[in-house]
């Protein structure tokens, strides 16, 4: 009886396990998807199948983003309900920070590069 009330107690509150588990089929599905999503970018770069480097770069970056989402769902079992949504909140916060840090650094440093460029003009003025 004691365990019964304890179980009911755990159900009433938010604790309990809190973390989702996978099954054999979801693990295999995730694995097959990530093999495909890894193989295609490698093949694109190694064979040079696409005409322009710019397009290839964009396509393989898109594949990386999709594969990260696949890993998050099938291997890390992310969903909006685990830990009362707090793990999703932490993830969203991290993504915002990462996007600001990455895009900010690249943008600012690129501008610096293009504004610091005129080495030849300096030598020409001498």
């Amino acid at each position, binding site marked *: 009886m004691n365990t019964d009330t304890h179980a009911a*107690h755990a159900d009433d*509150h938010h*604790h309990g396990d*809190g*973390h989702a*588990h*996978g*099954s*054999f089929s979801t*693990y*295999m599905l*995730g*694995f097959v998807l*990530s*093999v495909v999503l*890894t193989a295609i*970018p*490698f093949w694109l*770069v*190694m064979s040079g199948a696409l005409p322009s*480097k710019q397009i*290839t*770069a964009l396509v*393989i*970056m898109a*594949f*990386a983003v999709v*594969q*990260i989402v696949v*890993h*998050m769902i099938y*291997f*890390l079992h992310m969903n909006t309900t685990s*830990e009362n949504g*707090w*793990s999703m909140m*932490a*993830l969203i*916060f*991290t993504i915002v*920070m*990462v996007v600001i*840090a*990455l895009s900010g*650094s*690249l943008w600012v*440093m690129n501008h610096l590069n293009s504004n610091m460029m005129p080495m030849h003009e300096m030598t020409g003025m001498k």
Partner: protein
Amino acid sequence: MTVAVNPSQTGEPVFYLADEHPHPEGYSTSLGFWIYLMSDCLIFAILFATFGVLGANYAAGPAPKDLFDLDLVAVNTSMLLLSSITYGFAMLTMQQNKIAQTQMWLAITGLFGLAFIGIELTEFAHMIHEGATPQRSAFLSAFFTLVGTHGLHVSCGLIWLVTLMVQVGKFGLIEANRRRLMCLSMFWHFLDVVWIGVFTFVYLLGVLR
């Protein structure tokens, strides 16, 4: 905050907090560990940003095209991917309480992880032998810092894996060991996610440049 009233024998009301209750041991571990992983993610984001800024500064030294062997990187990537799925199998057999099979899958995961580290160290040794040391150019400094930090994480994961195999061998699949195996599962899959970024942005885009 709720306050409940419980009439005692003397008739005087007794006040206590109804929503204060004990938490089972480790109930917040998985959220705490997830937040640790997110902070680790920020470390890698900064290293990726550094590589993104410095990745084209070769200082007249070797460029990615001269250094990277994509066949080797593909083999390395498959090692890490295979170790991810075998760790998944270890978690599944753990849920079915099969100690021997869990140990076997953990050992296979460890071997794949070891192969990954071995290939990576071979690659590093080859590059350093060719004079592409971290001191050679800003690109190589950023490369060795980013990829080396990832490799260091995988090495720590391997030590952790062996520790947990000893723990499971000694105490079985007790609640505490299940919790630890789940944390290592998150850690291991997280490192695979970081590797997706590494092989895409460092190796593939580097060779493409």
